């Protein structure tokens, strides 16, 4: 599988490290209930199909990416920086 890194271009998956689901957002630890923290830490969907997931390009640009991939076909729809680029920031 090759991942189209938005910074480096298409690279083999061996240059990347997989983290998993890009959707969970960390609740405010001081306010959140134990159940909400449990969901955030442990509960994951395992969809067959379109999935947004985090990959780290450790052998390349050292950037975290959000890759939208079909888990059945490995077809990659999009790969974008996980960190939104602010105006004036380096590309």
């Amino acid at each position, binding site marked *: 599988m090759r991942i189209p890194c938005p910074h480096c271009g298409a690279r083999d998956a061996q240059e990347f490290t997989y983290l998993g689901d890009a959707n969970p957002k960390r609740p405010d630890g001081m306010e959140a209930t134990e159940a909400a923290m449990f969901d955030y830490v442990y509960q994951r969907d395992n969809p067959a199909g379109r999935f947004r997931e985090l990959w780290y390009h450790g052998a390349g640009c*050292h950037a975290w990416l959000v890759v939208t991939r079909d888990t059945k076909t490995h077809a990659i729809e999009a790969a974008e920086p996980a960190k939104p680029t*602010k*105006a004036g920031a*380096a*590309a």
Partner: protein
Amino acid sequence: MSDAATKSDAAMKPGWTPRSAWAGILSEGSFGAKGPAGVTATAREGLGIASLIVAEGGDAALAKAMKARFGLALPSTPQAAISAGRALVWAGPGQWLFIAGDRGGFADDLQALSGLAAIADQSDGRAVLTLSGDKIRAALAKGCMIDLHPSAFSVGSSALTSIAHIGVHLWRAEDGPNGAVFEFMVARSMAGSFWSWFSASAAEFGCQVTIPRACRVGRG
């Protein structure tokens, strides 16, 4: 009082001498197939190397300073800006390597950039080889996943990648007498492992190794 304590401080100091990152790894001469060398490898030593990382939004100020002092355009894509004696190589979003051909005045260069980026001197932490020759792309293709064909990797292109599980930073310099010229940089501690892969890959084409005379201090 013991004998050791009576010796002068100078006599007690260990004899530190600079040691090349390629010391004990490269041997000058040729190896592999006989005949004209298809591949050439030249040790780069005495380079001043520093990593630059800007805070978000800080690249404009760094770009201005780089242009004014060194005439180098700060690349925002995987490119290397190269001038006489200096290079500025993209190393990821908001990150660059600043390289000087020698270390004379390098501290002043870094001082001039102070405050514009997080600067860390990497001069002794990296090992660099200049690779060229008619067969260089065939030799590199055995482990390098980057397409180095001129149509895909022009002069001034750079890439960060992995070769034989070793992190490599590479860029293409101006063409030389043997065609395309590539600079390959690895962490100093990986120099031996990188050479193990490269020498095995280059042997079938015949490889000429050059170690610049000025850089032979401290060779093991």
